[in-house]
C-alpha cells in the first residue's frame, strides 16, 4: 500500500486526450473544443487531440507526456471501453504508471454515433462526459490485477470437426483436454456428408484421420454421450460437472446385442429417410466402434442374447472437472422447412439437400437414379430455403426470429451435388432456382462454372417471388411442378415438371439454451453464439476463458470451422500455457474498520462464495467480518448498496468516484 500513500501526497497531474477516431468522432463532435474545455480544468497538465489515439503515434504521445510531464493520471475520450480500454492501460503501464490510473471515456458509441444529427449538443455531451472522466480520474487509486493459478486443462464441448480440431491443437501444445460429445459417436455433421467441396475427398476419410489423431493423443480424454450439466468458477478455474450416460453394451456382447435388437426408430443420421435399431452404430466405421443404446427410445424390454434375457440399464455417471478454459463447439442443425413449405413433408418427392446427400450415401449404386422406386430424370434445386429471409416477404420462425442471414455453404454444396449427379447420370436434367449464386471461395467458383457448362439450367428468382412447388395433376408425366419467374430471361414464367425437388436448406445453430443460461454467453440476433468483436476478438466470448469454435458461431464450411477451431485453440493456449490467469481488480473490498459483520452483503450477493462473514482476528480479538473471495466476485456492487455501515466498495468504481462523476455530468457547459 506504499504506492497509494505516496500518491496521496503527490500532486495530481492528469493528461487528457480526445480522439478524432479518424473522423468517427470528430465528424460530429468538435474535438478541439473538448480539448480546450478540459485544458482549463484543475489538475489537467496537458490536453491534446489526435486522429487516432490508439495508433502507435497516439500511444507514444501519451507515454512521452507521462515521462516528460510527470503525469500520474490519464484519460482518453475515444471509442467504447470494450474496444481499447485495455490498449491504453497497456500504454500507461509501459510508461511506468499503474494501469488502473487510466480512465476511458466513450465518445463514439455513446456519443458521436448516436447524435450525428445534433453536433452542437454532441460536443457539449462530450465535454460533460470528459469532465466526469476527469472527476473520476482525480480519485483513481492504483490497483493490482488479481493473479490466479490456472488449471492447465481445457474442456471442449462438441465432438464435430471443429471440436476435434480444437482439442487436437490444444493438446499438441501440452495442455490437457477433455472433449465431451453429447451423442454416442464422434464426428458431428461432417460424418453425414459424402464427398465434400473443395477437395472432393470423402468426408469420413478426412474426419477419421482427425479422429484417430485425437483419440490417440495422450493429453486428450474423451467422453461420448456426455454433457456439461454444472458450471461454476471463473477463468482459469472453472468447476464443471459432466454427466455421462452409459453406452449400454460393451465389447463382447456388442455384436450379439446389435443383432438381437429389433426395436426400430427413424434414423437421424439419415435424416429420417431410413430406420435404425435402438441399439445402433451411427454408421459403419464410426467412432467409437462399439454400438450404443439409444436410451431415449429404448423401450426397456429384455433382449435374448445367447439364450439369456438381457435388460439394458443406463447407469448415469456424474463427475466434476476443474478446467481453465472452455471451447464451445456445439455445431449446427440443417434448417428443416415447416410442413407444406415448398411441398416439404407433403409431397414425397421434396427432400432437403442433407437428406439427399444421405440418400446418395446409402442407396445401392445403379445406372439409374430412382426415388421412391420411380426413375428420376428431371430435378429441381431450390436455393436459400430457410436462409436470407426478408421482412415482409418471409414469415419469422416460430421463435419470432427471421432467418435473414446467408448460410454460406448451401450454394457450393448444392452445385457440388448437382455436378456429381450430372457426372454419374448424364441424362439427368437439372433446373437450379437461385437468387444469387454464392460460390465465394478460391475453389468454389469452379463448381458453378462446371454446372453452367454441364447444362444445368439456372433460373433466377427475386426474393419476393419464390418458386412454388405443387403436385402435378394426376396423369402428368412428372409428379411435381415447380413454378417461378426467371429473371435471367426477362421474368419469363417457368413451369418445370420434375421427379424430385432438392431444397438447399440453410444452417441454423444447434440450440444450447441450457449452456447459454449456465454460462451466460451471449447469443446474437441470428441465434448463433456471439463473439466479442468480429475482428478484434473473433473467437472469444465476453465470458473470460470461454471461446467459440466452428458453426456454433455462424455458418461455416469445414475449412472455416477448422480455422476457427484452431484459432480458439490458440487463444486457449495463450491463456493456459503460462499456468496463470490475470483478472481485473474491480471487485468488492471491505473496510474492516467499518464492517461489523452484519452479513447484509452476503444476503444480497448473487454469486456463490463471493462474500462471506468469517471469523478473523483483529488486534488479538476474534471478530466477525465480511470477507471477499476476489475470484468469485463480479464487482456488481449489490453489497455496496446493502451495507448499513458503508463498509464495502467496489475497487475502481467507488461511491465517491461515482458521486464526483455525477456532479460533473450535471455541470453547465458551453460548446
Amino acid at each position, binding site marked *: 500500500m506504499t504506492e497509494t500513500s505516496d500518491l496521496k501526497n503527490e500532486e495530481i497531474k492528469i493528461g487528457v486526450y480526445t480522439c478524432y477516431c479518424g473522423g468517427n468522432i470528430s465528424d460530429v463532435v468538435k474535438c478541439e473544443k473538448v480539448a480546450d474545455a478540459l485544458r482549463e480544468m484543475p489538475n489537467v497538465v496537458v490536453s491534446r487531440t489526435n486522429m487516432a489515439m490508439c495508433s502507435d503515434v497516439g500511444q507514444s504521445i501519451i507515454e512521452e507526456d507521462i515521462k516528460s510531464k510527470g503525469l500520474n493520471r490519464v484519460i482518453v475520450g475515444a471509442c467504447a471501453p470494450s474496444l481499447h480500454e485495455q490498449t491504453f492501460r497497456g500504454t500507461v503501464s509501459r510508461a511506468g504508471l499503474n494501469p488502473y490510473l487510466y480512465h476511458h471515456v466513450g465518445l463514439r458509441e455513446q456519443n458521436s454515433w448516436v447524435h450525428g444529427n445534433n453536433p452542437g449538443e454532441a460536443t457539449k455531451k462530450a465535454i460533460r462526459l470528459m469532465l466526469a472522466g476527469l472527476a473520476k480520474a482525480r480519485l483513481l487509486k492504483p490497483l493490482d490485477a488479481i493473479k490466479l493459478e490456472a488449471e492447465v486443462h481445457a474442456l471442449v464441448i462438441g465432438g464435430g470437426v471443429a471440436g476435434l480440431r480444437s482439442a487436437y491443437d490444444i493438446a*499438441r501444445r501440452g495442455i490437457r483436454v477433455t472433449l465431451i460429445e453429447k451423442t454416442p459417436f464422434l464426428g458431428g455433421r461432417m460424418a453425414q456428408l459424402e464427398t465434400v467441396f473443395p477437395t472432393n475427398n470423402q468426408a469420413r476419410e478426412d474426419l477419421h*484421420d482427425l479422429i484417430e489423431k485425437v483419440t490417440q493423443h495422450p493429453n486428450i480424454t474423451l467422453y461420448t454421450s456426455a454433457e456439461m450439466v454444472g458450471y461454476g468458477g471463473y477463468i482459469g478455474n472453472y468447476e464443471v460437472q459432466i454427466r455421462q450416460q452409459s453406452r449400454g453394451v460393451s465389447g463382447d456382447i456388442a455384436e450379439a446385442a446389435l443383432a438381437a435388437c429389433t426395436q426400430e426408430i427413424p434414423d437421424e443420421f439419415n435424416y429420417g429417410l431410413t430406420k435404425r435399431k435402438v441399439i445402433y452404430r451411427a454408421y459403419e466405421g464410426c467412432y467409437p466402434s462399439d454400438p450404443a443404446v439409444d436410451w431415449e427410445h429404448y423401450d426397456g424390454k429384455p433382449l435374448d442374447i445367447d439364450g439369456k434375457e438381457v435388460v439394458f440399464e443406463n447407469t448415469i455417471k456424474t463427475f466434476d472437472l476443474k478446467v481453465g478454459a472452455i471451447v464451445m463447439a456445439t455445431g449446427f442443425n440443417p434448417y428443416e422447412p415447416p410442413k407444406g413449405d415448398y411441398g416439404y413433408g407433403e409431397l414425397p418427392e421434396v427432400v432437403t439437400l442433407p437428406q439427399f446427400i444421405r440418400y446418395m450415401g446409402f442407396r445401392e449404386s445403379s445406372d439409374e437414379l430412382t426415388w421412391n422406386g420411380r426413375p428420376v430424370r428431371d430435378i429441381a434445386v431450390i436455393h436459400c430455403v430457410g436462409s436470407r429471409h426478408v421482412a415482409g416477404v418471409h414469415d419469422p420462425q416460430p421463435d419470432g426470429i427471421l432467418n435473414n442471414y446467408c448460410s454460406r455453404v448451401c450454394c457450393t454444396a448444392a452445385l457440388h451435388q448437382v455436378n456429381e449427379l450430372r457426372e454419374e447420370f448424364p441424362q439427368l436434367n437439372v433446373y437450379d432456382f437461385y437468387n444469387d449464386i454464392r460460390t465465394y471461395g478460391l475453389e468454389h467458383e469452379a463448381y458453378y462454372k462446371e454446372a453452367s457448362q454441364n447444362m444445368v439450367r439456372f433460373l433466377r428468382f427475386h426474393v419476393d417471388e419464390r418458386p412454388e412447388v405443387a403436385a402435378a395433376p394426376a396423369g402428368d408425366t412428372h409428379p411435381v411442378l415447380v413454378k417461378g419467374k426467371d429473371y435471367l430471361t426477362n421474368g419469363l414464367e417457368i413451369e418445370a415438371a420434375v421427379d424430385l425437388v432438392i431444397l438447399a436448406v440453410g444452417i441454423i445453430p444447434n440450440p444450447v439454451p441450457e449452456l447459454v443460461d449456465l454460462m451466460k454467453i451471449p447469443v446474437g440476433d441470428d441465434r448463433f453464439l456471439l463473439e466479442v468483436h468480429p475482428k478484434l476478438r473473433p473467437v472469444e466470448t465476453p465470458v473470460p476463458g470461454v471461446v467459440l469454435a466452428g458453426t456454433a458461431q455462424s455458418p461455416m464450411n469445414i*475449412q472455416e470451422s477448422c480455422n476457427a477451431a484452431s484459432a480458439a485453440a490458440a487463444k486457449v493456449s495463450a491463456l493456459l500455457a503460462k499456468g496463470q490467469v490475470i483478472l481485473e481488480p474491480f471487485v468488492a473490498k471491505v473496510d474492516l474498520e467499518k464492517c461489523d459483520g452484519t452479513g447484509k452483503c452476503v444476503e444480497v450477493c448473487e454469486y456463490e462464495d463471493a462474500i462471506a462473514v468469517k471469523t478473523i482476528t483483529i488486534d488479538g480479538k476474534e471478530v466477525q467480518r465480511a470477507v471477499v473471495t476476489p475470484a468469485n466476485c463480479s464487482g456488481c456492487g449489490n453489497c455496496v448498496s446493502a451495507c448499513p455501515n458503508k463498509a464495502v466498495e467496489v475497487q475502481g468504481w467507488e461511491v465517491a468516484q461515482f458521486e464526483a462523476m455525477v456532479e460533473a455530468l450535471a455541470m453547465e457547459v458551453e460548446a
Partner: protein
Amino acid sequence: MDINKIKADALVVGGGIAGMQSALDLADQGYQVVLVEKDPSIGGKMIQLSKVFPTLDCCSCITTPKMSAVANHANIQTLTYCEVQSIDNADGHFVAQILKKPRYVDEDDCTGCRQCEYVCPIDVPSVFDLNMTARRAIRVPFSTAVPQLAVLDIENCILCGKCARACPADAVDFTQTAYEIELEVDAIVLATGFETTPIDAKKEYGAGNLHNVIDGLMMERLLAPTGPYARVLRPGDGKEPESIAYVQCAGSRDETLGVEYCSRVCCMYAIKQAMLIAGALPMADITLYYMDIRAFGKGYDQFYQNAQAMGIEFVKGKVAKITEDENQNPVVRVELIDEGQVVERTHDMIVLSVGMVPQYNPGSVYSVGVGEYGFIKSPAPNISSTETNRSGIFATGAATAPMDIVDSIASASAAASGAAAHLEAVQGGN
C-alpha cells in the same frame, strides 16, 4: 558477438493483418517471434482501407492498435524494410538470410517529425495513395506508420542533402548500405498477402486510361480521412461526382484474365463503399452492376439489405464496355438482365471492383507449393488449411486465397496454432 545473427522460435513473413495476428498469437503463447515486412511499415493492405465491413469501424481503430501491439510486444521483433533472400535447413532449424534495405535514416535517432519530408523538393507518385497524389523522396510512409520513421527512396532522390540539413535529430544517414541478418528459427508463417487485379487489365473497361474510372482500392483512399484529396473527388478533374457506379467482378470470375475464381471481398467492399459514399455525398446516386451479390459472412446479408434500404441501386447486369464522353464522364454499356436489354448509361465516376491475386511467389525462397492461381496451397485444405507441403512452414491470410479480414484473422490464429504445435513438437516445450 555478431549482432547480425538472431535466434528466435518463429519467423512471420508479411506484416499485414494476417501476419500481425499470427505473430501476436505466437508471442502471447511465449514464443519469440521475428516479423519480417518488406515495406517500411507494417500494416499491409488493411491500413490503406477507410472503414471496414461489416461493422463499419474505421480501419485504423482495428489496425493501428494491432500494429502498436506488435511493435510493443516483448516477444516480437519487427524487421521492416527487409526481405528474406533464402531459407536453408541446418540441424533441423530454418536459417533465413534476410536483407535489410537501407532507409538512409537512423532508426534510433529519427522521431518521425516529417521535417525532412517537407523540405524535400521532389514529388513522386504515392503508391500508398494509388498514385492519386504525391509523396516526397524522403517521407514517413503514412501518418500511422509503425515504426514511425522516415525512409529515403534513393531511386527518386536527387541527393541534394536538404533533408539531412533540416533534420533536427541528425538522423538522415547517407552512408547506410544494405546488410544481411541471419535468423535461425524452427517455424515459419507466410503471410505475404495479395495484390489487386490490375486496373488496366481489361481493354473493354478502358485499360486504365479513363481518369474517372478508378478501382476499389483507390476509392478506399478517397474515403479515408487521410486520403489524397481529403474528400471524394474525380481524379480526372477534381469535381465532386453526383452519380457513381460500381462494376462488380472487374477482374474476377474472368477467364480472359486467368482469374476464374471469385475474389470474395469485392461485393462486400463495394456495398460498404456505397454506404460510405452515401454518407459523404448524400445527394449522389449510387449504382452497383453485379451478377451475384455474395454477402455470405456473419452479418453480411443484413449489411446488404441495409444498403438496399438506403436507396443504393443494385442492378443485375453485365457491363460489356466502358467509354468516356466529352466531359470525361464514363459511359457504361450494360446488359440489364432483369429487363433483357442492353443500354448505355452515363455516370460521373466508375469504380471497378477489382479482385485479389497473390502478392508474392514463395516458390524459389520457401519451396512451398502453390495452386493453379499462385496462392499458397495446403495439402489438406479442409482440415489443415494453413499447412504447406513443407513441415514447419505455414501460410495464412490472403496469401492462401482471397479472403476478408475476419477470415484472415481466423486463418492467422489457426496458422499460429499450427506453428505453436510444431514448435512444441520439435523443441519439446518452451
